[in-house]
């Protein structure tokens, strides 16, 4: 068990006093970010990232991942107590969590949510522990064409499985790639697409984009909907928590099924939001007794929470082993890795084992820390939401702009964040998915390099993308996913030519639900 040894070594790296302190700070900041509307995991991590530039990479990634765990937990807290999901991935938790809280079972709902979330997260980390070396070893065989095919596959799966309009996904994704090409060209060294603006010489930072798209955009949307917090007071008594722990084994089927769904959606770029919806949907379908869903049924909390966290943690696997992040937050973290001078991908396992296994070990510890902390601090964070929005809203705006400025100390980035905020608001309202844009911005240079190197290898022939079984398989899978919507269009068109009256409503509804699933 080579991995177990490495993991033990990782615990040696992660379990220092300083790192445990970072975990506590990260988790607390994460819960705060998760609880506050408009601030979510992706832009919470983006805001914190510039402050870690001078830190040791292991400490920095522990801080950032802990913040991610905290944000996932914080999102569920507001879902249950306020019926307002702090994160899109906790929308499904509101369905049964809030009714439970209204019936006076807030403690039970919260403990159930946190414990099953912890279970899901552990499932994800165990998966990473077992699979990561294997995936990395496999990926060592990759050269440029295979890498490009993997990137292509990741993006094709957004188009094919995303559920949003495929053309909107393509526009969003390609805009991300285009933003990534602005500034210095990594191969020839020449400047591109700056149009004579010296502000654009350094390119468009994905951090500023995330802060604008997710932060400002989401806040505007929140304001438009007219936010009102009508919370349920919660005090967590240890007795109730232990009673809930004792009841957990009862939900083993839900826990296992949801973990599997979550892990799968995390590794493929489906993301936590889609995972939690899917898990909730399946729980409802498989339940022997369908009564009670949406009225405060414990499974309705257990399933989405488990899948949400399993997806959140397992999204780290493709990021580390392949250099392809499985969620928007993982994409931001991967961008961070590159800023710290690390190159995510299989070589990371060989060059920086301390970093990889320190991170994996910290995920075990961080999630335990997060469960304990979130149980202990729920009343405090719930109180924060009682601060009037006229204060908290503008403070969040200020935090976002501070974050945008700290990226590279440029005033231009403030305007850029503002512009991205408007774009984010409009894109969200029109169901343009935002996660592909962020992923493309982070992966842009790598994807372009892989493409250009492949072209150099093949002297300009695209045939290199089916020159051996491995790359052919990847390309074929990607093309299938890319063309998947065509099948959908064909089916839609056939159905439309038969009967047309009721169609647009149902199609639009389904698309809305699915885009919600991929906006993070």
């Amino acid at each position, binding site marked *: 068990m080579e991995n177990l040894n490495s993991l033990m070594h990782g615990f040696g790296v992660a379990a220092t006093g300083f790192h445990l302190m970072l975990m506590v700070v990260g988790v607390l900041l994460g819960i705060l970010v998760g609880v506050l509307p408009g601030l979510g995991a992706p832009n919470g991590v983006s805001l914190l990232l510039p402050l870690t530039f001078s830190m040791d990479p292991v400490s920095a990634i522990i801080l950032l991942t802990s913040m991610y765990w905290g944000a996932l937990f914080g999102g569920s807290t507001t879902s249950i107590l306020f019926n307002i999901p702090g994160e899109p991935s906790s929308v499904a938790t509101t369905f049964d969590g809030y009714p439970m809280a209204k019936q006076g079972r807030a403690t039970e709902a919260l403990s159930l949510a946190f414990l099953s979330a912890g279970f899901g997260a552990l499932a994800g980390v165990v998966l990473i522990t077992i699979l990561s070396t294997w995936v990395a070893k496999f990926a060592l065989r990759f050269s440029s064409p295979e890498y490009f095919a993997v990137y292509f596959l990741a993006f094709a799966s957004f188009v094919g499985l995303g559920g949003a309009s495929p053309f909107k996904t393509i526009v969003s994704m*390609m805009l991300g790639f285009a933003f990534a*090409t602005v500034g210095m060209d990594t191969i020839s060294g020449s400047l591109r697409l700056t149009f004579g603006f010296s502000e654009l010489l350094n390119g468009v930072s994905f951090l500023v984009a995330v802060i604008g798209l997710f932060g400002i955009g989401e806040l505007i949307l929140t304001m438009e909907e007219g936010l009102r917090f009508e919370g349920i007071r919660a005090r967590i008594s240890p007795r109730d928590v232990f009673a809930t722990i004792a009841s957990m084994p009862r939900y083993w089927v839900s826990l296992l099924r949801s973990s599997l769904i979550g892990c799968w959606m995390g590794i493929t770029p489906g993301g936590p939001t889609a995972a939690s919806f899917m898990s909730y949907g399946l729980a409802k379908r498989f339940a022997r007794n369908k009564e009670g869903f949406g009225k405060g049924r414990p499974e309705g909390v257990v399933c989405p929470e488990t899948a949400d966290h399993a997806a959140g943690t397992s999204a780290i696997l493709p990021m580390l082993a392949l250099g392809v992040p499985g969620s928007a937050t993982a994409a931001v973290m991967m961008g961070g890795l590159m800023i710290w001078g690390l190159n995510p991908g299989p070589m990371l396992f060989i060059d920086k084992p301390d970093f990889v296994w320190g991170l994996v070990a910290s995920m075990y510890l961080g999630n335990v820390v997060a469960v304990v902390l979130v149980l202990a601090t729920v009343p405090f964070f719930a109180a924060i939401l009682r601060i009037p929005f006229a204060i908290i809203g503008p403070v969040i705006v200020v935090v976002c702009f501070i974050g945008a400025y700290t990226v590279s100390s440029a005033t231009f980035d403030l305007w850029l964040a503002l512009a991205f905020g408007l774009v984010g608001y409009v894109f969200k309202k029109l169901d343009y998915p935002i996660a592909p844009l962020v992923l493309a911005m982070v992966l842009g240079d790598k994807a372009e390099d892989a493409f250009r190197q492949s072209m150099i290898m093949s002297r300009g022939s695209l045939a290199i993308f089916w020159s051996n079984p491995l790359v052919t398989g990847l390309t074929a899978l990607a093309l299938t996913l890319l063309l998947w919507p065509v099948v959908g269009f064909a089916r839609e068109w056939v159905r439309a030519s038969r009967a047309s009256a009721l169609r647009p409503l149902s199609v639009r509804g389904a698309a809305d639900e699915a885009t919600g699933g991929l906006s993070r």
Partner: protein
Amino acid sequence: MTHTTPETPAPALVSRRAAEVAAALFTGALGATVVVGAREYGVGWDSAGPQPGAFPFYLGLIIVAASLANLVRGVLAGAGGAFVDRDQARQVLAFFGPIVAFVVLTVTLGLYVGAALYLFGVMLVQGKYRWWIALLVSMGVSVFFFVVLERWFQVPLLKGPLEAALGIY
């Protein structure tokens, strides 16, 4: 600013179709800009492989094509309800307007002063707080960020004439 728009019973200010079309035109224009910009750097092939403009050039073309598809689909989809109604637009503007003011203030006066003025203004006008509460909170928030960022994390933020006058650098 809330009284500048007259009250009318018609709720939709911008229809979904109009918004779809505008968004498609916007992304299409961005794509076209990328295409034009990329042509400057050569979109063909030279001794070192594809020229620097090639990759963005094709990206731009795909953006334009997909935007056209969105445009057609947006037009064909029918009116499709409201993108934003009057009340929503008013709330969005009431929130977004001050943000723009904040950025302008920040660029001219520095981030700390800009943030304090912005918070003070929003709390006073929209939150209807008493002036001294607004003053206390806005100053408190600015000082808090100053201490956290400049002292603890040693991350310098944008400063303006006030900080220069006080000799804080």
